[in-house]
């Protein structure tokens, strides 16, 4: 807090007032619209914005840029939580700096208790190992988006790829859905559609939607008439051009050979043809000195 105060007063003090009035003003403008969300306390927001809405906010000690300290007013205004005031979520904020991640998770649970419980049951919850995503990894912190859109689901899948790099590459590399995921296609399934969300479980777990016993049901969420063979279609195919499945490897190598062979042969003929044509044009030009022209 001492640090923060130093920034506010020492470095950007004169600007504080104007920035505060911008953020505070826009917040109260949003509050005037009919909304079921609690009306913000403009005073609190302005107070926080006084420092945190300044784009060049830095920690004075080392002069290093701390993006986490800066809160974009645009983000807050575009959030579904736009009507909330800072301390509604940052409830753990006391007189000192807080552990941001845990604070956020706790805060979300005060309203979204069910989702938090579901999350804890999954591998990403407290029982899992290694670095794990929390609420804000997918949902964002200051710009919380409506989670019921396909656009949200597709952007959330980019977060999965940050850890599950290989699975993501194999998903993109050759199944019917992978490539279109780049386009955030509305009709295209992505990570969460098959693997679930909040309660994410390893494939071996019998409750996992991609477990052998559940996978056909999962396919049938969209492909209502999916026959039993549907589950054999590989969704995580290959990272590179040549799949590991020996049958698909044969198909790929056959097509690559056909491709290279065809273009090689006709490329060779074309080069010969162009060379021949040049010589013929040159002969014509020399035999008809009056011809002159484009070629």
């Amino acid at each position: 807090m001492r640090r923060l105060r130093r920034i506010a007063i020492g470095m950007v003090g004169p600007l504080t007032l104007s920035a505060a009035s911008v953020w505070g003003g826009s917040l109260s403008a949003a509050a005037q619209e009919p909304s079921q969300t609690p009306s913000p306390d403009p005073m609190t927001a302005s107070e926080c914005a006084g420092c945190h809405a300044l784009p060049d906010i830095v920690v004075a000690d080392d002069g290093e840029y701390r993006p986490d300290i800066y809160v974009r007013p645009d983000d807050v205004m575009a959030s579904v939580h736009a009507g909330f005031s800072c301390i509604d979520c940052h409830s753990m904020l006391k007189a000192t700096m807080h552990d941001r991640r845990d604070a956020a998770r706790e805060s979300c649970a005060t309203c979204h208790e069910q989702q938090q419980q579901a999350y804890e049951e999954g591998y990403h919850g407290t029982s899992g190992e290694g670095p794990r995503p929390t609420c804000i990894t997918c949902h964002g912190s200051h710009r919380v988006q409506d989670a019921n859109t396909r656009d949200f689901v597709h952007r959330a899948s980019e977060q999965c790829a940050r850890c599950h790099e290989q699975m993501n590459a194999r998903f993109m590399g050759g199944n019917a859905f992978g490539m279109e995921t780049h386009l955030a296609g509305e009709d295209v399934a992505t990570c969460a559609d098959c693997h679930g969300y909040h309660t994410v479980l390893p494939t071996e777990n019998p409750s996992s939607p991609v477990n052998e016993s559940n996978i056909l049901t999962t396919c049938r969420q969209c492909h209502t008439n999916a026959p039993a063979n549907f589950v054999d279609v590989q969704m995580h195919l290959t990272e590179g051009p040549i799949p590991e499945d020996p049958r698909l490897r044969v198909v790929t190598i056959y097509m690559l050979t056909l491709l290279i062979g065809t273009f090689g042969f006709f490329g060779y003929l074309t080069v010969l043809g162009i060379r021949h044509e040049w010589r013929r044009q040159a002969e014509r030009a020399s035999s008809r000195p009056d011809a002159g022209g484009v070629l």
Partner: protein
Amino acid sequence: MSAATTETLEHPEERQDGTTLVVRRWSWWARATHAVLAAGVFGLVLTGMPMHYADAFWAKPLLTIWGGERGAAAVHKVCAIAFIASAVMHVAGMAIAWVTGRFKIRSLFHEDSIVPRWTDVKQIGQQIRYLKDQGPRPEFARFTFWEKFDYIAEVWGLLIIGLTGLVMWFPDRFLEFLPGWLVNAARIFHSYEAILAMGFLFTVHYFNTHLRPEVFPVDEVIFSGNIPLHEIQERYPGWYTRVAGSSQVFRAKTGTSRTALLISGFYLSVGFLILMLVMTTAALEAIRYFGWLLGGFTE
């Protein structure tokens, strides 16, 4: 428009009124089939390529033309129907001509048929020697071996692309009797065959038709259906010996029409543009894959 009206006539059978002796190379039905095929293939390429190379920089802008990925998928399916329709038109045209007696099955085995013969294999070697100035020009019949390849590639391509496309369009139906891996195989076949077909059409096919120096920028034959006799003499000497002086020769106006210029100009420029974009992306991908191959098949 024609050069013949302003300059001296190159060939004795040409007249100042722009007419010359011609032979009908493509019937109106064949030209209509080609038009449906060309439009269908263009729609398929312009919607399919941005879906396949979805992460390329040009994919999203191109898809916005079709109203996003959903629109592109719909247009792709409509064009697929046009593509299949062109094949149906071709087969139906032959069937009707056979019923009415204008088409005989044995003509398939005639020298001037588009069906490949042993002669074509020999002419490949002859053509290479000719282009190297080591031999005479092969006595090509009505269709050269590369024109026959065009045709065979189209039939082969339609079967591969059409069948695999249908598998991906109706996976529920096909998976009732096909194993699951064939759907993955279908996608591999479909995308490679599409790149092969597009690459072939927009280079080899273009360069051998409209972009030949003699006819640049447009070969009128696919619009009028008529090929000048002097062109047959030069390009298809074998056919010329059979057709010259026969009742198939008639006098007609030749020269580039404005419509032909517009249509072929559109197809050529758009075709080249998308080809360049795809080739850039494919080359970058190939470089990345090369690194991946060096790293081994598995991580």
